[in-house]
């Protein structure tokens, strides 16, 4: 293609870079689906509502397939070094696309029953998935920034999607203002990274930063701290977590289910990549700071979750606690110990099933006329045994119970911490995850042992049941058959 343009422009030889389209094909599939969904709005009188989720699902399944077929390929860096498709980015692509698929399945009934504009919902949801993929594949500061924003801004909209509900509005406002604040901090960090190193590509930045022996060390450190703070907001790490309980509680439950896993995965991918690739040389500087953040995040999340009387808010604090567990894996990273990062990857994958399932079950309760209070789950087992069992599977997974995916996820991360010489940190994390049992068991006891308090309506929720079944089964099956996923995570972490 380059030669075509050379002729036209005469002596000035302009060579257009030939982008590798296969590398970005999952994003192309999702973009086409998002545009198609919106395009169908024009033909709204002619088209039945069912077409929107079908298009969204087709795009997501196509993206999943396109990511899976690239798994064996060699790493590709394309778009002038802005984009890198390797096992790492593909792992996160698969994770967030699965989150998108499950989200489409569980939100179908909420959308139709509450008369929410469907096309807009699916288009915005797909945009957020695209943003998460871009965040995970970015190999350049500018691409990273655009990816993070493309992921976050749609979730502000999704949070406020129940626009006649004041709680949803308030949650969206808090989320968007604090999200914008964190974006500005992240951007300032990226600006300084660029200003000090003169580069925007990760490999070039790594070359400049080196081992932190050269000049400008203080400025590089400042830049990396600002980046950690900015992305810390997105992953809901303490002390940048203030928005999390409000946004998660106020958002429509199906939206909470989606964003609690996909935004966390996308932002974690971006954080892992920029810290290990661009700032890998100065890990001795950021690692202690991340360890402190991880500890306070685990402590606050687990302790505050205990006193919550609303299951949705309790799960919001539990998601803060899980950020802490995942940070343990990243904080103990060093160039010779990449196991922690494979633990983070596996954790993000496992978390997609268990957390989306847990929030999805709350959405199922709401669809049947119950609330999200702790009393609302009373006696669920006697009314809907399958729902109670699925909910329990997800809660046990979040707890880290044997025979659920939560256990290997925690073991891999804590093992990495111990292997990196932080045995005390591994033990502390173990202790804090035991605290989790207190609040995860509470709704379970009520489901199985208390008398029902709320009478459940019985609408047919087939599509939703499929999504919840996949999430619950995934939580249990991956707890036994975790090795293929973990092998892939290990390959991704070691740069395969």
């Amino acid at each position, binding site marked *: 293609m380059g030669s075509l343009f050379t002729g036209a422009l005469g002596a000035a030889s302009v060579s257009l870079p030939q982008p590798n389209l296969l590398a970005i094909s999952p994003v192309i599939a999702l973009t086409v689906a998002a545009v198609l969904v919106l395009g169908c709005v024009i033909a709204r009188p002619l088209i039945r509502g069912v077409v929107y989720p079908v298009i969204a699902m087709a795009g997501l399944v196509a993206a999943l397939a396109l990511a899976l077929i690239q798994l064996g390929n060699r790493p590709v860096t394309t778009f002038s070094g802005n984009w890198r498709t390797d096992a790492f980015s593909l792992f996160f692509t698969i994770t967030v696309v699965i989150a998108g698929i499950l989200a489409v399945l569980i939100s179908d009934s909420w959308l139709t029953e509450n008369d929410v504009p469907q096309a807009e919902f699916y288009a915005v949801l797909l945009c957020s998935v695209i943003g998460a993929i871009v965040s995970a594949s970015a190999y350049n500061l500018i691409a990273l920034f655009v990816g993070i924003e493309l992921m976050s801004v749609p979730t502000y909209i999704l949070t406020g999607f129940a626009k006649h509900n004041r709680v949803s509005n308030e*949650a969206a406002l808090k989320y968007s203002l604090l999200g914008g604040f964190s974006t500005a901090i992240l951007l300032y960090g990226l600006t300084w990274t660029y200003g000090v190193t003169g580069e925007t590509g990760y490999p070039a930045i790594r070359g400049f930063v080196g081992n932190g022996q050269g000049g400008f060390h203080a400025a590089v450190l400042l830049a990396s701290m600002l980046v950690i703070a900015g992305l810390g907001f997105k992953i809901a790490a303490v002390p940048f977590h203030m928005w999390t309980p409000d946004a998660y509680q106020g958002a429509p439950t199906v939206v909470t289910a989606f964003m609690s896993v996909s935004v966390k995965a996308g932002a974690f991918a971006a954080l892992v990549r920029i810290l290990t690739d661009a700032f890998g040389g100065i890990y001795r500087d950021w690692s202690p700071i991340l360890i402190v953040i991880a500890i306070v995040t685990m402590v606050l999340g687990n302790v505050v979750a205990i006193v919550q009387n609303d299951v949705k808010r309790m799960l919001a604090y539990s998601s803060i606690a899980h950020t802490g567990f995942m940070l343990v894996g990243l904080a103990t990273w060093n160039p010779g110990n990449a196991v922690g990062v494979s633990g983070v990857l596996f954790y993000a994958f496992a978390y997609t099933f268990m957390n989306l399932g847990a929030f999805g079950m709350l959405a199922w309760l709401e669809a049947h006329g119950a609330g999200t209070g702790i009393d609302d789950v009373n006696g669920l087992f006697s009314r809907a045994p399958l729902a109670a069992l699925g909910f329990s599977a997800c809660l046990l997974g979040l707890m880290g119970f044997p025979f659920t995916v939560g256990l290997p996820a925690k073991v891999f991360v804590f093992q990495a911490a111990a292997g990196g010489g932080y045995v005390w940190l591994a033990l502390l994390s173990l202790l804090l995850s035991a605290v989790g049992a207190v609040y995860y068991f509470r709704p379970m006891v009520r489901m199985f042992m208390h008398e029902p308090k709320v009478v459940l309506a019985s609408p047919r929720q087939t599509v939703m049941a499929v999504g919840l079944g996949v999430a619950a089964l995934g939580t249990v099956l991956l707890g036994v058959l975790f090795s293929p996923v973990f092998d892939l995570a290990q390959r991704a972490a070691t740069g395969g």
Partner: protein
Amino acid sequence: MTPPLEWYLVFSALLFAIGVVGVLVRRHVLVILMSVELMLNASNVALAAFSRYLNSMAGQVFVVFTITVAAAEAAVALAIILALARHKDTVDVREMDILKD
């Protein structure tokens, strides 16, 4: 005579600090939103200055992306404020207190 790079960076740092203080102290949602924009523009000033002094175009490309993203974010935030103001005639964040511990 071109001012030295430090002047731009100090100016940018001041803008950023004013923005941070504005977000943390002010209670009017629109003022908070403007403070966030101020923080984003602090980065724009620094990026443009870095770009000029490093003789690298990447900084200016970054500025274009930042402006676009800031516009998208402001549009979404304003739409949310509008939706909220329809329910409750207020723009004071102290009165947005349904969600709390």
